[in-house]
């Protein structure tokens, strides 16, 4: 599961939909095995679109849980693709590495509201609930 996908998942328990704590799921860094996939080419425009789209606070939080404390607290503000400086490109490369190249191969994630734990096995998160919670 790519790091970016953590920005699109929430707890499956319907009662947690009334809480603000069902997203993002909380990752236990010590139990997560991360891998790098270098087959996806760096595309600055794509990463800029990702930045536009994501919930940045959730990105920062999950990155910290997985051991990356280097992200700025506020969403980076970049101009147009044509006007990118070298510093901007460095920021975008770092985010490409984090969002797209970094995957969680094995691990677990927990709802901050109800505490339910979801497992990631062989790169696939399982968000199904046991019958008594479904």
């Amino acid at each position, binding site marked *: 599961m790519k790091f970016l996908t953590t920005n699109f998942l929430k*707890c*499956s328990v319907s009662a947690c939909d009334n809480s603000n704590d069902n997203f993002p799921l909380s990752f236990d860094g010590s139990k997560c095995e991360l891998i790098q996939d270098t087959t996806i080419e760096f595309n600055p*425009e*794509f990463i800029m679109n990702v930045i*536009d*789209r994501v919930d940045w606070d959730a990105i920062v939080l999950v990155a910290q849980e997985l051991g990356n404390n280097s992200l700025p607290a506020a969403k980076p503000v970049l101009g147009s693709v044509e006007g990118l400086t070298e510093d901007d490109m460095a920021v975008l490369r770092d985010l490409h590495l984090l969002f797209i190249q970094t995957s969680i191969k094995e691990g677990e994630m927990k709802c901050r509201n109800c505490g339910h734990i979801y497992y990631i096995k062989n790169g696939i998160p399982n*968000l199904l609930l046991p019958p008594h919670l479904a």
Partner: protein
Amino acid sequence: MLPTPLVKCDYDKIYEPSEDSFLLLDALEKEQGYLVEKFNGLVLVCEFGPGSGIVTTFMIQNRIPVGLNSVYLAVDVSPWAVEATLETAKLNNCDKGTVLDTVQGNLGTGLRKNQVDVLLFNPPYVPAEEVPEVPESKDDYKWLDLALDGGEDGMVVTQKVLDNLDSILSKNGVAYILFCARNHPEQVAEEMRLKGWKIDLVEHRKAGWEVLSVYRFSRN
């Protein structure tokens, strides 16, 4: 005509791509122009119940809707289907270089609200006494039934998605859903229109004894 992905799966466990799957591909091919017009920026394409993965792979292979700016998420209840979807992507060289993840889950219940830009759904639409229970073990032989049996009028699973469409789709989001005639799609479409949705028939075809259609749902 756009190429159709190669698929090799164990069809005792995975729904074998059939007329319904191909109708959905044809509908999406037809919709390319509409989708390119509709979106700019990042597009999250999400398929519920990908089964073999043929539809999601088709989207990746043909860079629909907007080549390098799309990310793909395929959600299936079956552990066999989430694996098959990745294998089909790989078989068609669509795994490398693409932002694709598969998730084992129940429709949109594990997805953050209002994020899906393009939803694809070829549901279990066959009228049946009930929707099968989710098997407890991966080795259960009943996983395939979940891909077919749709309960009363074959609409039980589809109706769940329609009822939650407003919280699944992004503001500009659009859903493509397949129906058979026994689902009474025109009636379903009318009910959704009354709730404020815009519904368009994209494809319609007689396939053997079934009449299949693909509808597009978007906000007015």
